[in-house]
């Protein structure tokens, strides 16, 4: 059964801390892995990863894919209260273009 598992389910940190969010998957015909930040309405797209070992970076956020381990991590350095959100991971299959979403990691950053 295809599935995406995120950990931890929730996380509370203080401003300035660094956090690492995990996403592991068991999906056949893998095409890409996407990270989203969800605050209110639509989740905001963060990264799309297709190649293993290549880090994508945007400001304090970075992410990398490990196809051998079937996983990805999302790092956030020097966290701010505005980083508080649910972070979603989704894997897209080559066949059928189906999305498999994890249930997300709820991050709370305390001032």
């Amino acid at each position, binding site marked *: 059964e295809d599935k995406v598992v995120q950990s931890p389910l929730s996380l509370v940190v203080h401003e300035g801390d660094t956090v690492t969010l995990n996403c592991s998957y068991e999906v056949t015909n893998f095409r890409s892995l996407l990270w989203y930040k969800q605050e209110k309405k639509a989740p*905001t797209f963060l990264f799309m990863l297709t190649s293993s070992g290549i880090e994508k970076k945007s400001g304090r956020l970075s992410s990398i894919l490990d196809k051998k381990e079937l996983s990805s991590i999302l790092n956030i350095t020097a966290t701010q209260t505005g980083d508080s959100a649910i972070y979603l991971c989704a894997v897209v299959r080559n066949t059928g*273009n189906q999305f498999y*979403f994890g*249930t*997300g990691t709820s991050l709370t950053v305390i001032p």
Partner: protein
Amino acid sequence: GAGVSQSPSNKVTEKGKDVELRCDPISGHTALYWYRQSLGQGLEFLIYFQGNSAPDKSGLPSDRFSAERTGGSVSTLTIQRTQQEDSAVYLCASSSPWGSGQQGTQYFGPGTRLLVL
């Protein structure tokens, strides 16, 4: 089933035709959301249902798009007179009621890939 299901998984249609996309949310989830993921774009919010009513239709891109939800469960998204720019993956999500301990967490379906020729 245990998760959100959507049908069909893929739909190819000709420009000008109407299409109906279906979403079956997780049982007991009162909130239901429709999103659109176009190639190279982020997720685009379309509409949100709380029960059978749609308090937020702000994301519907045109009057060709409509959605309904009956019985507080299944929802259908209808696109009339489809255009090529409607081609996208249409995603549905549901979330549990406030007070249930898991509120806010949206559970996504696998999506319907729509291709308008």
